[in-house]
């Protein structure tokens, strides 16, 4: 465990060095991120200048939701997206062999090898926006709701990770799965609004097939004290199952790749 943490630190450090080499690019990315987050925050504020409540969501809750969205997307773009993208390149180019020959978990190497360190900023922005929303909701935040928030957020991230792992693992059989992932990114994008505002079928898709709804909406609801213990339990269960299924699927893919199952 200790060793894996040391490796993670090393991965982040090398990628950070790389990011710092291209300062102009870095500055532009940072600017873009601030502008995008700023405008979407402004959009929510403008919307709530005309109404107090949107589909049951108050201003404070909506801002928290936006903040959580940036946290989730930030984490996803910080490590999952670059790593899995690279993994698919490895499968295409045949360089995955080098990873399989390392005396560390291949799943770890594939999932956490590459970082877009600049995305840390998006996570920070998300935290700040969440903080702003919480200030609005100050009265309703309790220790329990804060705990539920942190817990469901962690579950949501694991759910997204599990789904991404499954989708990426398909590359063992189909090699080119970039398009499947493109659909996934689009759904992630849709997560910036509460899933309650979407029509039924889409809501169900977004909370089951693509768990972004759960990852973003549930924590935002939890902090407002709107999630009961039963839901938290269910989400934990779903996360545990998703984690195990994705791991099994990954191992299955690896076996197919090495010809063990033929």
């Amino acid at each position, binding site marked *: 465990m200790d*060793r894996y943490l040391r490796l993670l630190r090393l991965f982040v450090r*090398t*990628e950070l060095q790389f990011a710092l080499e291209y300062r102009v690019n870095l500055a532009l990315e940072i600017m873009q991120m601030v502008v995008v987050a700023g405008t979407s925050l402004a959009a929510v504020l403008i919307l709530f200048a005309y109404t107090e409540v949107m589909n049951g969501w108050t201003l404070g809750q909506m801002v928290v939701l936006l903040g959580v969205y940036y946290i989730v997307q930030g984490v996803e773009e910080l490590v999952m997206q670059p790593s899995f993208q690279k993994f698919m390149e490895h499968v295409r180019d045949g*360089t995955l*062999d*080098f990873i399989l*020959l390392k*005396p560390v978990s291949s799943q770890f190497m594939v999932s956490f090898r590459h970082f877009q360190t600049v995305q840390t900023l998006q996570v920070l922005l998300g935290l700040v926006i969440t903080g702003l929303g919480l200030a609005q909701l100050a009265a309703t935040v309790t220790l329990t709701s804060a705990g539920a928030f942190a817990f469901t957020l962690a579950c949501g991230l694991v759910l997204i990770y599990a789904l991404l792992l499954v989708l990426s693992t398909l590359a063992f059989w189909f090699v080119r799965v970039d398009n499947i992932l493109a659909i996934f990114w689009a759904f992630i994008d849709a997560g910036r609004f509460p899933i309650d505002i979407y029509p039924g079928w889409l809501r169900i898709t977004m909370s089951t097939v693509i768990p972004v709804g759960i990852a973003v909406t549930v924590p935002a609801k939890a902090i407002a004290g709107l999630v009961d213990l039963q839901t938290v339990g269910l989400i934990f269960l779903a996360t545990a199952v998703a984690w195990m299924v994705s791991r099994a699927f990954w191992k299955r893919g690896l076996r197919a790749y090495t010809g063990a199952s*033929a």
Partner: protein
Amino acid sequence: MTDAVIDVRGLTKVYRVHERQEGLGAAVRSIFNRKFREVPAVTDATFRIEAGEVVGFLGPNGAGKTTTLKMLSGLLYPTSGGARVVGHVPWRRDADFLRAITLLMGNRTQLVWDIAAADSLRVLQEIYRIPEDRYRATLGELTDLLELEPLLHKPVRDLSLGERMKVEFAAGLIHSPRVAFLDEPTLGLDVSMQSRIRRFVAEHNRRAGTTVILTSHYMDDVVALCKRVIVIHHGRLLYDGQLGELAQRMAPYKVITVALRDGAASAFLDELGTVTSRDEASVTLHVPRESAPERTARIVRDLEGSLADISVEDPPIEEVIDRVFAGERMPEALAAT
């Protein structure tokens, strides 16, 4: 009998390939009713390799060299047969096994493109848990042998192909593996870089005692490095023995190519060897290996001013292997090991 570092028995790999038919209709049908064809890649390979040996795997493209290497390094499960490498079953990929081997591929890189090799090496140090002092010692030695100093701190993408290969070697050997699988390590390199890499492999083998299995279709690589060769063709082991014997027995001749100035008489060349091609400007002939120097001297003497150029070469590896494959299997050579 000492314990072999690599012990391979009846190793066989059959790929199941999805049979594709032409046409859209066939493609649709194949979704429901897939036809598979079995393609044998390696058939019943058996050999042993002792510690510190440098063995060349020879064979044309698609002969099964890479499939064999991939099974021995644990990347592929065999269809049948067994193998032990440093005492482990490779395809279980135990951590101890993985720490004892390395695989280098001439056409693929394990280095991260955008960062300096030094950073990639640090990551490898952590992955293989190499203690700092040993890491420094090994890196120092590799830096010496490969003249890496100016290369380590540049992003890998800024390196030339040859420079990249040198760094690739450093990355592959930083954990001091006992067995090194080198798959076409000189592919695409210019002649001088090829010979640098060869010198390095020989020197590293001498110093560290690393067992090396090398595949290449450059005969020069094999000649420079391997005393022993294993010839594979269509997945079958055709020859396993001394390199010198392979060249002598399988291709007991040398190829002399004579370039002629305008209108030089070349009829006398027919008496010196078997002429295999001839046009106005050049003649190619095969002469018995042992008389090659003497005949070459005679050609130079007889042609004098009419001689534009002359070269004496071993027959191309493909030709040697073709001869091996053309039924000239040598049981005594196979049995010799």
